[in-house]
Every structure is written in C-alpha cells, then in structure tokens.
C-alpha cells in the first residue's frame, strides 16, 4: 500500500521541504514570541491608548483565518507596493497570527499573579521594573510556558499554510511528489511521518510541562 520508493526517489524534495518547514517554524516562533510579549505589555500598561491598540490587535488576528493573514502579506501588500515571496509571506503571516495567541497567554500569566503581591513589593520599596522582574515575571513564566509550548506545536502544524502560497515547505513538496507520481497515499504518508517527527516531541514536552505545573501548583 505504501511504496517506499516514493520516499527514496524524491528524498531531496522531502528534505528541502523539511528544511523550509523547520526554518519557517523557528523564525515564526522567535518572532511571534517577541511580538506576543510586546502586545501583552501593551495590554497591561496604564496607557489607555496602548491597551486599546493591543486589544484590537489580539481580537483581530484571533478571529480571522490564518490563510487570510497570509493572503494579506502575499496578495495584499503588493497592492501597497511591497512584494514578499511565498516563504516570507507565509512565515510573517504565521508569526503575526501566532503572536496574538501568545500575547493572550502572556497577559493571562502576568495577571494571574495576585495584585496583593505587587502592592506588597511596591510598598516595601521596589520600583515597578524591580517588582516585575523579581516578583511578577518569575511566577508568570511558570504559568505561561505550557500554553506557549502548545502554541508552538500549533505553529509547526500551521506552517503547512506555506504550501498554499508556494512557500516550498514540507506540505508543498509532498503535494508536488503526489502530482508527479500519482501515488497519493504514499506521498502523503511520508509527509505525515515527517510532521509527526517534528510535532510529537513538542507534544510530549507540552504535556510534561503541564503535569509539572499541576503538581507544583
């Protein structure tokens, strides 16, 4: 049923796909983390305008499909004079989309630290930054890590969106192999195996982190 030759004959295509899927995921991962933390901070500062901007950002990107975000970069930006190729558009779309979820996780983590602790820290003479650094963030990080790991798992799966805009990722090449060989089941089975190799370790890590949090909490 599954013909191994599909893998051996097209090994170079699969390999290039894996490489691009990995780089897209890692780039989007780093970018979405930075962007997500910035937006989370915007949402909890005492500037009303920043609060609103942060909320609009999060709500907008969480409520539209990832494909649409990618289309905005791939088809929409050229209309404004900026053309980015499929790989870059896909990665940027992935980054912006995921950052909205990370922003929410980070905000929830920070706000889960009881306000009493912040007040106590402030009244004992610590500055706002010191309070954040020594009291709030260490506790928040512990709460935030499991949902963020989970987002990264989603991110790797979602990176398959690159295939729709010809981003040369694993899904794209799996599809190309399929259209050359007409052996759909085998072409996709190997794509599945490679995705699982990337996602299962993340899945295990995310579960383990969640367990540890439950035990310590």
């Amino acid at each position, binding site marked *: 049923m599954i013909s191994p030759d599909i893998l051996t004959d097209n090994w170079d295509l699969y390999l290039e796909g894996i490489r691009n899927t990995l780089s897209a995921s890692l780039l989007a991962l780093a970018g979405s983390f930075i962007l997500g933390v910035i937006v989370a901070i915007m949402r909890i500062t005492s500037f009303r305008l920043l609060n609103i901007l942060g909320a609009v950002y999060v709500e907008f990107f969480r409520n539209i499909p990832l494909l*649409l975000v990618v289309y905005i970069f791939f088809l929409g930006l050229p209309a404004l004079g900026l053309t980015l190729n499929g790989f870059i558009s896909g990665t940027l779309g992935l980054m912006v989309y995921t950052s909205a979820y990370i922003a929410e996780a980070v905000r929830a983590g920070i706000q889960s630290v009881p306000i009493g602790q912040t007040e106590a820290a402030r009244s004992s003479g610590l500055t706002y930054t010191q309070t954040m650094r020594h009291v709030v963030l260490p506790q928040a990080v512990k709460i935030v890590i499991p949902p963020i790991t989970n987002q990264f798992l989603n991110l790797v799966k979602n990176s398959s969106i690159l295939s*729709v805009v010809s981003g040369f990722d694993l899904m794209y090449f799996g599809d190309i192999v399929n259209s050359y060989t007409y052996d759909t089941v085998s072409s996709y089975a190997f794509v599945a195996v490679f995705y699982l190799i990337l996602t299962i370790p993340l899945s295990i890590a995310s579960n383990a982190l969640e367990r540890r949090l439950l035990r310590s909490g």
Partner: protein
Amino acid sequence: MDFTSAYSRDNLSFLLEGFGLTLWLALLAIIFSFVLGCVLGIIRYAKVPVLSPIVGLFVELVRNLPLLLLIFFARFGLPELGVSLPPFWAAITALTLFEAAMIAEIVRSGLNSVDKGWVEAARSSGLSYGQTLQQIILPIGLRRMVPPIVSQFISLLKDTSLTVVITLGEMMHHANIVMGQNSRIVFPILLLVAFMYFIVNYVLSLFARRLEARQT
C-alpha cells in the same frame, strides 16, 4: 485601490454565497465533531482496556498532524483506498476528525480536573462507576469544558478556509475568483473577507467569555 468596483452587487452576492457554504461547512462539522469528540474523550478518560489506548492513539495521531494534510488526504488519498467521497463530504470528514481529536482532549482534561475526592465520595456512598460518571463527573466537568469548546468552534470556522485547496466554492475560493478581476480590488476584498469572518467569530468569542464569567 478601488472600493466601489470591489463592493459591486455581483461581487457581494458572490462572496455571500461563498460565506454561506463556509457557515454550512462549519455548522455540520461542529455538530459531528462535538458528538465524536465527547465520545472519544469519555472513552479515553474511562480507561477501558484495549478501547481507550486505541482511541488515545487515534487522538494523538490526528492532533499532531496539520489539518491541511488531512484535507488533502481525505480528498485525494481516500479514493485510492477505495473510499471515495464527494469533495464537500471529504472536507467535512477531515474537519470533523481533526476537531473531534481536539475536543476529545478538552473533554478528557475537563473530566480529569474534577476533584478526585468527589469521585471517591460518590463511589463510597454506593454509586456505581457509570452512575458516578453520569451524575457527578460529567455535570461538573462539562461546565468547565464549555469555554474551551466554544473557542475550538471558532478555530473550526476559521479552519474551513483551508478547504480552498480542494476548490469547494467556500468563502476563500470565491474571494480568489473575485480578486482575479482586477488588481486594484485585491486589498478591499481581503478587508471585506476579514470583516465577515471577524464578525461571526467575535460574536462567538463574546459568547464564550460570558459563559466563562458566569462560572467564576
């Protein structure tokens, strides 16, 4: 950018037709995946010999694959295995299996979050395992699951856009056809499409938040 010709009557009605199919796809997949997800989640929670590990394997397999791959597979792979579905039902199958696996996880962790003390108390007061599940665990667990399940429904509605790769004629495919008319209407059309998804999803998310607020 040309907003007037982008939002012509023909274009609007064509996009609405696509959005109709998007909503219909989402509604059917929501119903099927909710039922299937609950069943799978409960089986996995109840640790039935043989059955639970099989369900567990299925859930983890599907959860760790991209939905796009499942859509391609349901459309082009299944016929090779002798199961040939019309495109619409191939899409429903892929969406249902994927979202059911996600919901099964929500259900299982919801049930797991029910205090073991309650379960033990119920059992020692003479209730059978089935009765305990039905009268204690499910009612408490279900209430906790509702907000994440509604968020999953929002994801599902967004995920229907991925069926663009099998040209079903839902929202995104229709948007592609309309955008092909003229480069100047690409941006206005993308905005309009975003707005339509946003409205429906935002209303759903407000609903989820109200449910969440009522619990605490």
